[in-house]
């Protein structure tokens, strides 16, 4: 009861979202509560079961780290496309802006902080201008043209060294996010198992 009073609007906001946009924790617990996918909590439960798992899996740094992994995964797709088109005439290098992603994520964290007063609750992150979550759960990627090298005779602006560097940096970002996420999950697992 307490949880629903603290965040009275959140369950409604989740219920208003299309099903595919919701986090796994939302749908799992709403199914668990024996209701349709549209409703996340029941008033007669006495206790909001959705909140229990949601606070565990969607608080703190976990959603931000998940967003980081998703972004790095999508950027890898774009970088692989650049490498595949390395000898395509008239091809301009594309990229997803890391700075834009960082800014959008920082905005989302800031918005959550101002709403809940801390690192609790759902992170209102819907992607950047370039990576958007579609209503059916699909990712729509619209990369912008990247700063390439000089224009070659075939009107391509390939830059192999820069591509390789981008790829290494992106894979490192992915690895950092995954390792941090793993440490969070290990912490949760230790807490559940009551072990140190």
């Amino acid at each position, binding site marked *: 009861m307490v949880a629903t009073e603290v965040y009275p609007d959140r369950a409604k906001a989740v219920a208003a979202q299309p099903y595919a946009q919701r986090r796994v924790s939302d749908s799992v617990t709403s199914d668990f509560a024996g209701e349709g996918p549209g409703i996340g909590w029941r008033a007669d439960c006495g206790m909001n079961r959705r909140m229990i798992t949601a606070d565990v899996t969607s608080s703190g740094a976990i959603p931000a780290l998940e967003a980081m*992994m998703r972004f*790095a*995964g999508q950027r*890898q*797709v*774009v*970088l*692989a*496309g650049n*490498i*595949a*088109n*390395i*000898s*395509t*005439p*008239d*091809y301009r290098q*594309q990229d997803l802006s890391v700075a834009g992603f960082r800014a959008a994520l920082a905005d989302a964290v800031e918005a959550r902080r101002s709403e809940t007063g801390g690192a609790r609750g759902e992170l209102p992150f819907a992607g950047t201008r370039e990576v958007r979550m579609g209503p059916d759960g*699909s990712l729509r*990627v619209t990369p912008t043209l990247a700063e390439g090298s000089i224009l070659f005779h075939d009107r391509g602006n390939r830059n*192999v060294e820069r*591509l*390789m560097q981008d*790829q*290494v940096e992106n*894979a490192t970002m*992915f*690895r950092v996010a*995954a*390792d941090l*996420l*793993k440490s969070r*999950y290990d912490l949760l697992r230790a807490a559940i198992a009551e072990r140190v």
Partner: protein
Amino acid sequence: MYGALDISTAGMLVQRTRVEVASANIAGAGAVRDADGNLNPYRRRTALIAAGDPEGRSEFARQFGVRVAEIAVDDAPAQPRRYDPDHPDAYPDGPYKGYVAESNVNTVLEQINAMEAARAYEANVVAAEVTKQMMAVALRLIG
């Protein structure tokens, strides 16, 4: 991320086709007659590459992939380069009397194209390796 693997595979496919075309050109460089035995020197082939792969397996592969749009035939005329008046296919008269018509293949150019394609192939392999590593990292979250 599976889309990234599709894209790298498409890139490898394209570069392999370029190597194959270069090999075919080098192999056919000396051919003066065609398959039917007529005097018709071999014409150089070029793989025309275009961005996007409409037959890609995933949406990302269709969007960011690459494909061989066409294997075009180079219409540049055969070059009467070699002087060999005893050759049965030598020009019997005219300004090129005694010369043998040769294909329009430049073997040095083909070698360079093949080398470049091989390097680009390697770049795609590296991209696929990075994708595989990222997948392995993501899988570690389960364990």
